[in-house]
């Protein structure tokens, strides 16, 4: 068996000082070679493990035959953001984790191949014909321009709807622009061009509209004349630990830290937005957001440390991010839990008081739950602490939309196809599931688009 085709990456020493993309991706020859490794299994386990069931053997065999356009067509049946998902999906626990080759050898680099096809499609988008049904005179409003909203909007536009996306921030892309750093997902070359493709379908996008404040969901239906609304407002509300000292100067949510860097470009001198990573930054958490924050702090010149209460095996972050972080010199302190942020006489962070943990019995999630080691209290000296403990949905829409059911975690209640408790109001992505993945949000947006189409074709138009 030929070994997995290695992917070119920026040198770790070099990239730890810049914000350019870490992974350089395959070229045509490498992609074709890697595609040739696929066994084209009769029962493709990779496909069943893909949250949106992309025909993975189908696109790979087109690629192996040198038909990149064909590969792009295959993927586009199920995914509208391959260049994004190829970069940020947790492939090791989805498609690649199920690849038969992975049993004895290394799995096919499905993510890298998807990225190659997605990037090719972006580069050739203007020359490729997209089939759009004629305008049917019905209008749909989409709240939020993240993966769920973009996917829902493009499918509806193809079905002939007049679609308008309302975005609260000044830039389009949601978590793709404010959350995921440039070094993992380039904003101009990838996100902006994906957005451009959505616009090319006739989708209109208005920024600076905070639904729940500027307008309510009911305003969209009653005053603005939309026939249906899709809510893809994400999960943007940061969690804190609730420990002493969390409001000291130098303690940030990962959301704030990453928004300053990603959305506001605070790492660039020309940007007016300040950012402070300190001499030593401790990031609390073990997910992708924690990895993004710690690697951003490193790039801003700080000694950057991850503190996580479980062990390495339980890290929820993608394996590749952890691997990249280690290569870049990030220090990992596992089985460590903060109990107090320590401040100096001016109210700035001077350290983080932690306890050592050990793994006990498995908890509800099946992971062994960490318990405190008696008498293990110790201090980590630092001047910045960043909390990356997860996020929950923003309550703005819930609190301003009568009759919209939410659960106790503040997530909008919606069925498989995105129908909420309000007729004509659909929802999907993190706003429904709580913080999850780009591909799940994209998939939910597409399902909701079909449900909206069903709803509007069964309901008579008001004329």
């Amino acid at each position, binding site marked *: 068996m030929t070994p997995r085709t290695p992917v070119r990456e920026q040198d770790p020493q070099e990239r730890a000082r810049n914000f350019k993309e870490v992974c350089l991706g395959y070229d045509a020859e490498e992609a074709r070679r890697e595609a040739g490794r696929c066994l084209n299994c009769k029962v493709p386990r990779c496909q069943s493990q893909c949250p949106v069931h992309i025909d993975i053997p189908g696109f790979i065999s087109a690629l192996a035959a040198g038909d990149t356009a064909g590969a792009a067509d295959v993927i586009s049946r199920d995914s509208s953001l391959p260049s994004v998902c190829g970069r940020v999906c947790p492939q090791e626990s989805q498609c690649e984790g199920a690849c038969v080759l992975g049993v004895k050898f290394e799995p096919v680099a499905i993510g890298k191949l998807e990225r190659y096809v997605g990037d090719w499609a972006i580069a050739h988008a203007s020359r490729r014909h997209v089939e759009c049904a004629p305008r049917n005179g019905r209008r749909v409003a989409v709240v939020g321009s993240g993966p769920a909203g973009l996917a829902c909007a493009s499918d509806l536009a193809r079905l002939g709807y007049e679609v308008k996306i309302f975005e609260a*921030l000044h830039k389009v892309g949601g978590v793709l622009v404010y959350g995921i750093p440039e070094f993992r997902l380039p904003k101009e070359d990838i996100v902006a061009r994906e957005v451009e493709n959505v616009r090319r379908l006739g989708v209109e996008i208005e920024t600076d509209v905070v639904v729940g404040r500027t307008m309510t969901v009911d305003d969209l239906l009653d005053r603005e004349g939309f026939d249906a609304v899709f809510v893809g407002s994400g999960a943007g509300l940061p969690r804190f630990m609730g420990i002493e000292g969390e*409001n000291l100067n130098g303690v940030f949510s990962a*959301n704030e830290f990453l*928004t300053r860097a990603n959305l*506001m470009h*605070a790492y660039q001198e020309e940007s007016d937005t*300040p950012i402070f990573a300190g001499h030593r930054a401790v990031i609390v958490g073990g997910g992708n957001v924690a990895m993004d924050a710690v690697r951003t702090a490193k790039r801003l010149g700080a000694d950057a440390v991850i503190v996580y209460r479980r062990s390495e095996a339980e890290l929820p972050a993608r394996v590749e991010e952890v691997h990249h972080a280690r290569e870049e010199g990030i220090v990992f302190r596992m089985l460590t839990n903060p109990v107090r942020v320590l401040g100096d006489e001016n109210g700035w962070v001077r350290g983080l008081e932690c306890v050592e943990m050990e793994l006990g019995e498995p908890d509800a999630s099946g992971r062994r739950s960490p318990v405190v080691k008696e008498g293990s209290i110790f201090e980590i000296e630092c001047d910045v602490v960043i909390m990356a403990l997860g996020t929950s949905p923003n309550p703005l829409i819930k609190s301003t939309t009568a009759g919209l059911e939410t659960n106790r975690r503040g997530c909008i209640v919606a069925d498989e196809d995105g129908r909420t408790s309000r007729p004509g109001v659909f929802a999907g992505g993190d706003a429904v599931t709580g913080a999850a993945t780009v591909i799940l949000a994209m998939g939910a947006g597409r399902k909701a688009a079909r449900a909206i189409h069903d709803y509007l074709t069964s309901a008579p138009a008001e004329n």
Partner: protein
Amino acid sequence: MFKITSKRELAPRITEMRVHAPRVASSARPGQFVIVRVDDEGERIPLTICDYDAAQGWVTIVTQTVGVSSAKINSLEVGDSFIDFAGPLGRPSDLLDLPEEELKRTRVLFVAGGVGTAPVYPQAKWLSEHGVRPDVIIGARTKDLFTYVEEMSRVADVYLATDDGSAGFHGLVTALIEDLIERRGHCYDRCVVIGPMIMMKYAAQTTRRLKLPTVVSLNALMVDGTGMCGACRVSVGGQTRFTCVDGPEFDAHQVDFDEAMRRQNMYRGNPKTDLSRHHCECGVH
């Protein structure tokens, strides 16, 4: 793009602008704020809404030059545009929740200082439109620094205080609060204080002693202004709250002002925000 349709200087370094922003204007309520951005490199800056007209689609903001971003805002001229003007954000003033009958009986004292005077105006105006004429104390270091006195006098009984005695009461606003209540026998059910953090802190101490329920409008640092970043968190009665979505108005007697002031200065001295260290060619300094 959000075009500036009029501009005037209210006092040295304090400028009022009327901005065409029909969506914000049609939803704005007293007590809310907007987030603006001047250009592609610009910060997202929260500014309290000072006046608005839904029918004509304009919103008024008042900005004091204190750093790079506020200097950029004040360098804009009529005909220029903000690239972003998002809002209205935050919760409207609690006064709007009062039942009509209770509102009519409510005696309100506003205490305004510095650039905080303009944001008091929409609240006082709203009260006067609802048949309640409030008292408004406006404080300034010296008489040349007063803003919005004329507008305010149309909707409220105005009491001026200057540190140097150049106009009105000679002394701090806290002394004037005591003077009105303890010596002149004014009675109030509620007090709203908007101004520099230090003024709000001491005014809150005074009204706590006088047992006058008081709210303050906090001007915390923010990035998104929609509850995403948590930069604006403030301790109120021992609980952490977000100024952008839980506020900007909070019970003055519960706010940890020392923490709020410390957090407000988090980036002081940062070369990006500190005007004195900034060497650009924007022509405003």
